[in-house]
């Protein structure tokens, strides 16, 4: 179990030390005034594509001995576009997406408890409205 905590600690270090958890960096990204955030996301994707291609070509197995399979996401448009847009509004307002929120809480910015409760409320609201939303 503790292995997941270690992965989380690594994630916390990466996003804190690269400043991706900073409101100012998110603002800078949306103003296209620095390559930094695009470099982080872009190189993560590039490295990720290589990793996924190797996993598929070599049939890499996970720790339990089963082949690693990555599920295809359902091929629709609206949920991704509207949901993504809504997420983008929140990301740029608070300057933190979910992982940085946990990291900043740990860094002592306890006000993110308010964000956490609000995010859980938003998630619950989605659960309630889900049957009526276009997907």
């Amino acid at each position, binding site marked *: 179990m503790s292995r997941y905590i270690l992965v989380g*600690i690594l994630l916390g270090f990466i996003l804190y030390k690269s400043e991706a958890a900073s409101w100012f960096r998110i603002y800078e990204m949306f*103003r296209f005034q620095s390559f930094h955030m695009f470099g982080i996301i872009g190189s*993560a994707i590039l490295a990720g594509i290589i990793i996924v291609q190797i996993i598929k070509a070599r049939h890499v197995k996970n720790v*339990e001995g089963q082949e690693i399979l990555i599920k295809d996401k359902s091929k629709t448009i609206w949920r991704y576009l509207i949901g*993504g847009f809504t997420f983008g509004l929140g990301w740029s*307002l608070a300057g933190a997406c979910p992982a940085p929120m946990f990291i900043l809480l740990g860094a002592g910015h306890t006000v993110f408890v308010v964000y956490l409760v609000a*995010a859980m409320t938003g998630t*619950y609201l989605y659960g309630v409205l889900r049957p009526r939303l276009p997907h």
Partner: protein
Amino acid sequence: MFMEFLIQVREFLSEPWPWYVAGPLLALVMFVLLYFGHEFGISENFRIMCAADGADQMNDFFKINWKDGQWNLLVALGAVFGGYVASHYFMGTEGDTAHISDATVASLNEIGLSVEAGKEPFVPEFISWGGLLHWQGWLMIAGGGLLVGFGARYAGGCTSGHAISGLSALQLPSLIAVIGFFLGGLFVTYFVLPLLFPF
């Protein structure tokens, strides 16, 4: 000798991490989780927390066994620890600073948010309990959180699930989601934030 080495390691890690270190390491996090049999996705934790708090009895969307999500909650808990350790013991000589570009400093001052080049705090002053004394603070912190929680579940993932895991697996839906993230972010950055400052 050994202590000296450790101090040097600490100094090395305390430097700001460049993008080409952070990006590939994020891919490594994704791979390690795949290797452990899971898909990287932090926002799923909000749903798991809702389920654990009793939402599973109120709504079908939360009828999941939250214990299956324990691994993900532990990743989030690790991120809390990581944030604590990085910010308390690995800050280096420059301290808690966001090294944003001069252009960004100029833009911020233009919209009424006064910041000094080289002295931008990691988290801005208004993202605090004091910020909640103003409606703008509520909009940014609570409003932001609400929209993030709603949008992430609606889109089926956040920055980790779509931008990193999804695009790495060349998923077209994730590309649509990421385009959505940017449309939302650009809208707020260009049309909403200028209305909020100064406060």
